[in-house]
């Protein structure tokens, strides 16, 4: 078996209107963050079904972060409020299952906050890396 250097795998769901644009801005400004972060574009953070988060952990993700517009700024008026509530519930359940709170996060990043996006990702990746590989929920049939 090949021994690989441990690198965390992080799935980031970004809403199309704020956070995805914030990520683009981070790129425009050449602000570095780890390549471990892979972004999935969704129309609104409220499109993120808790199933997607579970799926990611099941398939071996070490951390999942959901980024949306700031409260009050949602392109769809109220979508991020749903996200906030749904994820608060989900994350506390995941915590109960042994997926540490540091592995999950909801962050508000506006389209102007490229620097915040990069800083958030650096911080999140660092915290997840410190926790090491996530074994909980992982479906061993999908072992990397």
């Amino acid at each position: 078996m090949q021994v690989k250097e441990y690198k965390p795998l992080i799935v980031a769901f970004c809403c199309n209107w704020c956070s995805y644009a914030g990520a683009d801005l981070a790129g425009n400004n050449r602000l570095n963050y780890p390549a471990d972060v892979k972004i999935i574009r969704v129309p609104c953070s409220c499109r993120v079904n808790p199933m997607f988060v579970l799926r990611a952990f099941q398939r071996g993700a070490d951390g999942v972060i959901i980024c949306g517009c700031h409260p009050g700024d949602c392109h769809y008026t109220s979508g991020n409020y749903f996200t906030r509530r749904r994820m608060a519930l989900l994350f506390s359940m995941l915590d109960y299952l042994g997926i540490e709170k540091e592995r999950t996060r909801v962050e508000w990043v506006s389209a102007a906050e490229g620097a915040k996006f990069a800083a958030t990702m650096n911080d999140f990746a660092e915290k997840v890396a410190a926790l090491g590989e996530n074994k909980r929920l992982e479906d061993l049939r999908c072992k990397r």
Partner: protein
Amino acid sequence: MQRIGVFVCWCGSNIAGTVDVQAVSEALKSEPGVVFSANYQYMCSQAGQNMIIEAVKKHKLTGIVVCSCSPRMHEATFRKTAAAAGLNPYMVEIANIREQCSWVHKDMATGTEKAIILGKAAIAKVNLNTPLTPGESPVTKRALVIGGGIAGIQTALDIADAGFEVDIVEKKPTIGGKMAQLDKTFPTLDCAACILTPKMVDVAQNDKIRIFSYSEVTEVKGFVGNFDVKIKKKARFVNESLCTGCGACTEKCPMKKVPNEFNLGMDNRRAIYIPFAQAVPKVATIDPDYCNMLKNGKCGVCAKVCTAGAIDYTQKDEFIEEKYGAIVVATGFNPISMDKFDEFAYNQSKDVITSLEFERLTNAAGPTAGKLLRPSDGKHPHTIVFVQCVGSRCDSCAEKGKEYCSKICCMYTAKHAMLTRDKYPDTDVYVFYIDVRTPGKSFDEFYRRAVEEYGVHYIKGMVGKVSPEGDKLKVQASDLLNNKQLHIDADLVVLAAAIEPDKSARPLATMLTASMDTNDFFTEAHPKLRPVESPTAGVFLSGTCQGPKDIPETVSQASAAAAKVIGLLAKDKLTGNPCIASSDELMCNGCSSCERVCAYGAITYVDKEFRMPDRTTAIRRVAQVNPAVCQGCGACTVACPSGAMDLRGFASNQIIAEVDAICK
């Protein structure tokens, strides 16, 4: 199985500098469904696009993945390319390997590895893409404006100016609204009637505009472009087309003791009345609560004096049904009731008045013909105390008042104080303020003039109690800067009452499925970027129904709303966003979870007949998404407990495929 073509862009050295594009296109070649993979210097160039078109034809591609810059940059470009090649434009996915890869990573190995994973995710998604076609719906080229104040008037004029038909529904007998009651307008002090009444006449004379006065909207159905609206024309017992507005009836009517609402009850009108001289339409209305003929059949004077034969005691409420493409809400505001603030003795003394009553008292067409006289004894007041923020900026637990700043009070109080000092220099004028808020063009200068040139006494503090003693109003107040309690013997006290949305707004919002905030102000689709649109498509907001505003702001918003309406009505057909929610009716259990989270009211329920497995039929309640109204946020897809609701273009299985591809 799709036949996918992958196109990796170098973007000059922008991508190729950190990502080994050759390696990426090689690695993606063996992904499921991929039948062609290439790379090129600039995919977005004409040559690059031609390369895609040729590949589609040559390899019979059904899906395209472009590994390039952000989809926010060139997704539209490549969709057009796909369409030019005869593909459905929604069969294109972009892997963002520039902004989110090559530009943020420095190391070629890392960049290449990540680019491959991003490419795989896009391929996994395209494998599940389905061709999407935007829905189309026709547009009725007529607008409805609800409310005939300055906001509704301006919106209607602007829409009519662009050549579209507009109907104004006004619940009062005349249009004009609050502005018609005002005397002068800040900060320029031009008279409200002089600038408003010509606009009212323009409305009356514009052949594109119909006015339904003394009317209310009772039912709204349909959606953007296709509203069906029922309007109740209340019986005014006067035939509008015959009445000439001569006013003979209003002079002869024997019922003289009807409180005149136009002058806020400070004088009386007759049972048959025209609210004010410049009313539009200038048609009399009979008040059924006071008319003796209507109440007990004894009178009929107005019918006798009317030479036009316009009086019709048998008139009934009439219902009109009309189709509209767009609806503008312009329902306006009212000052709040002062009942809960009787420490200021509004209900205990006639000489404690609200600022709107003060407007009427100084208006040349008002109850005192413009002379500032006390309502109690008709004497000229020598000491006037203005109290600001009565009912504004209250705590939510205070059981009275509003939490918000009413915005217009600081300026109109400065205006009242200044005009009083200007006309009656022998009058002492005190203004008690908490803050003076004057953010507007020439606003602070105006307030400073009231203080510096006109000698208005501005005192930082608040009035605690007004005690009507004899013919004086004993005002007990604080002067915070001098740390003193003041006792002023005033002749008149004027309260800057908070303003609130008109009471008709709440039931109207329910009819329109337009959302409101806790204060019953209509909420805008986006507080910064879509300030004149309601989240409900096709419903627009004009004036103070959306929040406190002064006249300049109201007029700008009114014109902005008109521009949005014109933009909508100018289209023959509405093309929707195809990435919308849709419900699998076989899975839907009719629970309403999706309806409750939809900010746009796009989801309705229908009872539908289904064939059951045992060949019987059953009626089930299922959700239906209106494609013209859905904005595609996806909130409903997560709320749906049965998994019936999904979002086209961002379907659950597509996103899960992306997750899987990334985590592989």
